């Protein structure tokens, strides 16, 4: 197999525009006879579906939730980036491009990222036109906030519910096309395999999750918009159902997997509270606009916090270590996520964690609440010498408007009021930069099979900047794929629909059915969750925030043992011909186990540290990630050969427009 990234020739700035206006078109009459299957209804899937249907293609969309509106994108909180320069603070397409490449620690493709920055503005226009109620200033203009890794304000938001508002916008476009009969929607359906015919992807096998029936669907092309695989760690900020199954089935049928080990650990999440924990909750990065992160300087204070004799507020200013501001004066609390997470781990490992578990740091709003917002309001009200109490009260109202839902959520979960005492936070698994390898057209290594959104590996390199996933999902679905798919479909106009009685469909369905029966017939003694938790622990301990060769080797053999145990001792209750949640989980965990092994393998082979991939053996004297550009400036694309057997392909990354350098946020 040869990796061809299909990046068009020419100047970076004009490449996309030129390509877009020369890529082959499909005429309207032909579009009506071309069928496209879209798996996933998040931002990537919904936006692609409505756009392709508007263009005239016949579209089918699948999701496992009971409505397209519940895809995991709904949970995104903080915002979406766009190079609009509405704040007149020097933002531009080039700056967004540059920040993204640098933020990704120089492990993303220049051409893809530039295209992303170019279309970012259109996304905001499109969303506003479709009724997304973004936050606004009194003059009626759109409001912006800052996110990590940048020094401009380019993040658009809707309180702490940006993902919800964006997805509802995209979903309404999708439902409109459903109403018009241009899209057929299949909710509570799970894709369990892809079907390849004559070297091209031509369909899927899906299970109706209510009746348990297996279905065959033909498509001239198939789009996987199935999200990320953070749940391989068991505990993550992802929704409970988020999984890798669709991507993994495609991988086993020929789609290479790109950079599987690049995982984002988000610095600000509510710490684990006990063994019962089923998921972790994010506290949006936007909070770092106004929250300062600290731990005590003195061990006495740490102990007092842990035995409850002191609260965060009792520790005087001088005894606090605002370690991000100390270590990174230029970016302070707004360093990128990987940097912030490692710094928190460093302090906690050194014994300064502020909770009983030792795994928590403070995120404190008191300062900005009083002295930034409180003062502002006091001045507006004409109060010259406001009391401390007045400042707090005024500031609280402003903070409430900005982050109210997040503060409520924090209180709901922890039982503590963050308006009164500092939040406790700790890093947690959040996002996966890795995913199916795609070329410039977003096509995987299986012709006709595409991957969009978090499911692909494409734009974030080794670390994603905050508010860029929503941007990428909508860019892929609204503005990139609908054009690039022409390159493939224009050659398919004479391909007739293939009947699903074709033997490739028959075989694929038979395999899926056998797998399902195997799960049910093992009749062992352990639940699916038992295996998932075990896998999660291996991954978090050995392939999490810090990794080393020895640990990764152990992890690989532990995972192989776990896989054997899974297939011998799993117990799945119920039948296949009914709604069976345990059966659904079993399939997902089986795939996570295999993926976990590949992630460790990838992490082990990459003898450098970059972005979210931190190998303890490769760090600078100050403990920062040390890249090895000479040997590792490439995308690792893994081709599946057999159980525990992959072949590595390398796509060299070429930087012609950016000078690559040691990343610095100091």
């Amino acid at each position, binding site marked *: 197999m040869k990796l061809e990234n299909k990046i068009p020739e020419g100047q970076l700035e004009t490449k996309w525009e030129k390509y877009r206006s020369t890529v082959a078109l499909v005429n309207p009459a032909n579009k009506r006879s071309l069928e496209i299957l879209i798996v996933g209804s998040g931002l990537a899937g919904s936006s692609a579906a409505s756009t392709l249907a508007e263009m005239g293609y016949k579209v089918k969309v699948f999701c496992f939730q009971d409505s397209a509106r519940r895809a995991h994108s709904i949970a995104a909180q903080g915002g979406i980036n766009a190079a609009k320069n509405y704040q007149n603070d020097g933002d531009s397409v080039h700056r967004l491009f540059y920040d993204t490449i640098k933020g990704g620690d120089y492990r993303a493709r220049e051409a893809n990222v530039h295209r992303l920055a170019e279309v970012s503005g259109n996304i905001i226009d499109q969303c*506003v036109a479709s009724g997304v109620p973004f936050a606004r200033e009194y003059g009626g203009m759109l409001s912006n906030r800052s996110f990590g890794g940048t020094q401009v304000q380019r993040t658009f938001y809707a309180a702490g519910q940006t993902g919800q508002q964006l997805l509802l916008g995209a979903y309404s476009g999708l439902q409109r096309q459903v109403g018009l009969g241009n899209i057929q929607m299949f909710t509570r359906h799970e894709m369990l395999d892809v079907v390849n015919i004559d070297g091209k992807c031509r369909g899927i096998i899906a299970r109706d999750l209510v009746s348990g029936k297996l279905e065959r669907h033909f498509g001239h092309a198939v789009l996987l918009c199935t999200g990320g695989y953070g749940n391989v760690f068991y505990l993550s900020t992802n929704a409970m159902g988020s999984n890798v199954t669709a991507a993994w089935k495609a991988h086993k049928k020929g789609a290479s997997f790109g950079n599987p080990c690049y995982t984002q650990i988000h610095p600000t999440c509510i710490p684990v509270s006990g063994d019962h924990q089923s998921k972790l909750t994010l506290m949006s990065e936007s909070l770092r606009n106004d929250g300062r992160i600290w731990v005590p300087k003195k061990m006495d204070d740490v102990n007092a916090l842990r035995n409850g004799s002191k609260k965060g507020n009792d520790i005087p200013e001088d005894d606090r270590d605002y370690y991000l501001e100390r270590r990174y004066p230029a970016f302070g609390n707004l360093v990128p996520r990987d940097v912030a997470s490692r710094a928190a781990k460093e302090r906690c490992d050194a014994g300064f964690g502020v909770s009983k578990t030792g795994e928590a740091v403070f995120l404190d709003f008191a300062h900005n609440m009083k002295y930034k917002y409180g003062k502002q309001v006091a001045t507006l009200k004409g109060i010259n010498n406001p009391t401390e109490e007045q400042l707090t009260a005024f500031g609280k109202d402003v903070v409430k408007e900005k982050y109210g839902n997040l503060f409520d959520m924090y209180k709901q979960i922890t039982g503590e009021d963050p308006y009164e005492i500092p939040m406790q936070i700790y890093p947690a698994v959040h996002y996966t930069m890795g995913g199916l390898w795609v070329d410039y057209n977003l096509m995987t290594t299986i012709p006709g099979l595409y991957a969009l959104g978090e499911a692909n590996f494409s734009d974030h390199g080794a670390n994603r900047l905050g508010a860029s996933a929503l941007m990428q999902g909508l860019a892929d679905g609204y503005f990139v794929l609908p054009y690039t798919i022409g390159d493939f479909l224009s050659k398919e106009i004479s391909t007739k629909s293939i009947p699903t009685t074709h033997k490739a469909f028959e075989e694929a369905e038979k395999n899926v059915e056998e797998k399902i029966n195997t799960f049910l017939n093992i009749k062992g003694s352990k*639940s699916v969750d038992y295996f998932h938790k075990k896998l999660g622990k291996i991954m978090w301990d050995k392939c999490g925030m810090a990794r080393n060769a020895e640990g990764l080797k152990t992890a690989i053999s532990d995972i192989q043992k776990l896989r054997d145990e899974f297939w011998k001792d799993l117990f799945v209750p119920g039948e296949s011909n009914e709604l069976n949640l345990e059966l659904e989980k079993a399939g997902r965990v089986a795939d996570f186990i295999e993926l976990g092994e590949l992630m460790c393998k990838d992490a082990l082979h990459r003898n450098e540290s970059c972005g979210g991939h931190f190998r303890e053996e490769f760090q600078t004297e100050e403990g920062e990630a040390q890249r090895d550009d000479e040997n590792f400036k490439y995308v690792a694309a893994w081709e599946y050969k057999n159980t525990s057997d992959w072949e590595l392909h390398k796509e060299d990354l070429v930087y012609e427009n950016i000078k690559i350098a040691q990343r610095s946020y100091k």
Partner: protein
Amino acid sequence: MKILKLHKEVISNLNPQKKRNSMSGNMNIKLKVWRQKNSNSKGELVNYKVSEVSPDMSFLEMFDMLNETLINEKKEPIAFDHDCREGICGMCSMFINGRPHGPNDAVTTCQLHMRSFKDGDTIVVEPWRASAFPILKDLIVDRSSFDRIISAGGFISVNTGNAQDANCLPIGKNEADESFAAAACIGCGACVAACKNSSAMLFVSAKVSQLALLPQGKPERHQRVLNMVAQMDSEGFGACTNTGACEAECPKEISLSNIARMNREYLSAKLCSEIE
């Protein structure tokens, strides 16, 4: 609350879980949970006991724990809908002690924590009940009627690529905020479950309001409200008699004023269509 009969008792004891690090005070809880094999079968309330419940657990984590025990006893776990567990996807949907999403205001089932209950409490858990939400299994219902209502008109007809620059259309902060407040609806269906008539007015009016408040939504406003209401009626949701139970139980505090706005929208749309 509908009347339910108790058929049989199944008592399950949970394996003691390892205690969490900081909290003590574990609770014993009795549950009566609606079990129903599928949409064609009859359901019943079944009794369970769950011990060693930590007050820091979420309500769904308590169910996870119960399910883990049932599986270990080779029994069928209780099926319930959930996904984000952050109160935003709208998937979780339990009718707890006679209230959708349980005893606390402005909270979804997944954000309800066991510290809201006491040691020894008996908790009755049922699915949403409405003829437009048929039960699929145990606590899972079919809410696809909501999607069909959105398909009927809950959108702005703008194709991709037709948009002008976003700031060419200034929108006053108050309108934007009000529209956002209506748009916060998570489509969970608690309003329907809470209503004695099973009316979907709060859900539908939230969408109608969101779009009617924005200049982008104005051109289609009449058609939108007529089509959405027609679809709502054809799905078998009941009429609104202004009891306000929906607002009281809505986890996102969607306001009744949206219903008033929708009624105005509807009247003016009807008037216009008659004049035309």
